[in-house]
């Protein structure tokens, strides 16, 4: 048997197991991702890859019954069920994009912890960058203004003006003289 044939048989077997899992002998059938996002477009994951990818995706999906928690961090039953479903979908070969689409179809963009770059959400991405850019412009403008600032015109006049500094104060000069013992 060729290697390609073995892979095809394995995938067919997986599809059959999935179909059985989705519809038990009593005829129970839960809504399935295939109904919404079609057939899996990726490679079925197993082992550490499956665990790692499940964790990655779970960290990006919001738990609908919690306050701003990812399903990866929530101990709620809902989050556990959603995480279980993410794992199951990855094991069946669904891609990250398909999984996001599946949950987004039910919950809308609410379920995505990282908002998409579209519509009003664009502001969430653009405004902080604009604000930062504006801040940088202001700082550079200020620095430039300081560098360009002219020397004080009255520098000479200031030196010639009557001294206000303690060294030049006549009273202080007299006191110093007295302290030094110069009585002339």
């Amino acid at each position, binding site marked *: 048997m060729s290697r390609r044939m073995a892979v095809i048989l394995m995938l067919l077997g997986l599809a059959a197991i999935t179909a059985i899992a989705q519809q038990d002998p009593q005829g129970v059938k839960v809504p399935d991702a295939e109904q919404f996002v079609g057939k899996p477009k990726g490679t079925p994951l197993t082992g550490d890859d499956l665990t790692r990818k499940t964790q990655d995706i779970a960290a990006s999906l919001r738990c609908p019954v919690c306050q701003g928690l990812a399903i990866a961090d929530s101990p709620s039953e809902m989050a556990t069920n959603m995480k279980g479903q993410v794992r199951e979908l990855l094991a069946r070969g669904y891609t990250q994009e398909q999984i996001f689409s599946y949950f987004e179809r*039910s919950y809308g963009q609410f379920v995505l912890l990282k908002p998409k770059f579209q519509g009003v959400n664009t502001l969430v991405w653009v405004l902080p960058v604009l604000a930062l850019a504006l801040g940088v412009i202001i700082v550079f403008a200020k620095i430039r203004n300081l560098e360009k600032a002219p020397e004080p015109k009255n520098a000479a006049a200031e030196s010639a003006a009557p001294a206000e500094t303690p060294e030049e104060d006549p009273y202080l000069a007299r006191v110093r003289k007295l302290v030094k013992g110069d009585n002339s």
Partner: protein
Amino acid sequence: MNRTVLLIGIVITAALLVVLYFGLGKDPQHIDSPLIGRLAPSFALKAVGSGETIDLARYRGKPVVLNFWATWCRPCWEEHPTLTATAKSVGDQVQFVGVVFQDDESKIVDFLRERGWAYPTLVDEKGKTAIAYGVGGVPETFFLDRKGNIVAKFEGPMSPQDLEVNLAKAMK
């Protein structure tokens, strides 16, 4: 230069305030359902008590009120009399269906025996039906028209008026 910078600053601040206004004014638990106007996710689930498997498709042709609820949810207790009374009064014209959300079947049976049992209540396997419908808490009710499309969603306990208004949408 200063005037330009000031203008840009005002524009950015105004935009941020708009985003905050709309963001903070929202109920953080409210979910705008993208399913409204779409065909309801199909399912066939086991009914509490009888064990019979009920396929949603069997109700195609009449409006369906699909109520996600649980016995641990106090607001679900509040709306239960409204749902059972309406289900009894409308008879075969509208199909009411309950879906158990994160609860034990035995508790559901006890609850229904004590407080009235007017329509099938189904057990949701691993919450997959709730997830497919985008349920973010209970009670939550979906209204399906005769073609099986979701026409409305109601979050929280329904008063008879709420039920009537949404039912009218499903019966159009």
